[in-house]
């Protein structure tokens, strides 16, 4: 089942305690790390926790999650794919 990127953006903002950012300010394809949203390695770990908490998705190998964390769109696709196989 697909997940709305707007919903996912709201969850990212909440789980990372991002201030002064609203979901509509985050582009679906903008990089989450580095130049885009400017997240860092601690945020990556926080997103891993959020995925387990909100979607029951466990990422045991960070290499597995790396492509998923490229953007909101890739993360939404990753969640949808993991849900369809579970």
């Amino acid at each position, binding site marked *: 089942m697909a997940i709305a990127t707007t919903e996912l953006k709201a969850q990212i903002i909440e789980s990372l*305690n991002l*201030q002064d950012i609203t979901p509509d300010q985050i582009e679906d394809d903008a990089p989450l790390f580095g130049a885009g949203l400017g997240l860092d390695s601690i945020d990556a770990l926080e997103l891993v926790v959020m995925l*387990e908490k909100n979607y029951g998705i466990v990422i045991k190998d960070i290499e597995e999650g790396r492509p998923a964390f490229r953007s909101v769109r890739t993360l939404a696709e990753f969640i949808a794919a993991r849900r369809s196989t579970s």
Partner: protein
Amino acid sequence: MSKLFITACSTATRADVATARLGNRFGRMDLASQLALLTVEPLAEQLRAIPGHRIAIVLAARVGSLPTDVEYWKGRHAVGGLSPTLFTYTLPSAAIGEIAIRHGLTGPNLCFVGDSKDVLSEAVELLQTDAADGCVCVYTHVVSPDLTAMISLPETAQAGAIFLQRNGPGLMELGENRRDMESLCANLRAPKLTK
């Protein structure tokens, strides 16, 4: 022994945190780091006048990272594990890192867990030995509701900062007998944080 001067001073409380806007990373910090950042913010103009590698930071965290430690302990059975962000603030010196990052300060730093009575003396030592040209002196005092029963202290959230340097006169010359940082901050009528 050269003369040293307090060139800037500030204080911050929980009320300041609620209205602060210091970038989108501010929200993930623990309260002590937020207070420390806020109280140093009005010192920014003085900090910019000295190269970052020549500015030291001395911090006294009255209860260390105890509020965050308790929060971390309480969340140890959380689904998905504990918050990695929370873990990073289970270090009393975390606020030094946040100050250093925001203001580009790479000089020496020192963290006390306890009251601030030795902060200014250590800052003087750093300046008199030429380890730095300026020193950001900070104290934080955070007692969360969870802690009040544990350590018999009233709930509070406050911080103060003083910038000490060789160039004066600034606000006042630092005298031999006036090294109680918290009373100095109170007496200097610290400027309120401006948004």
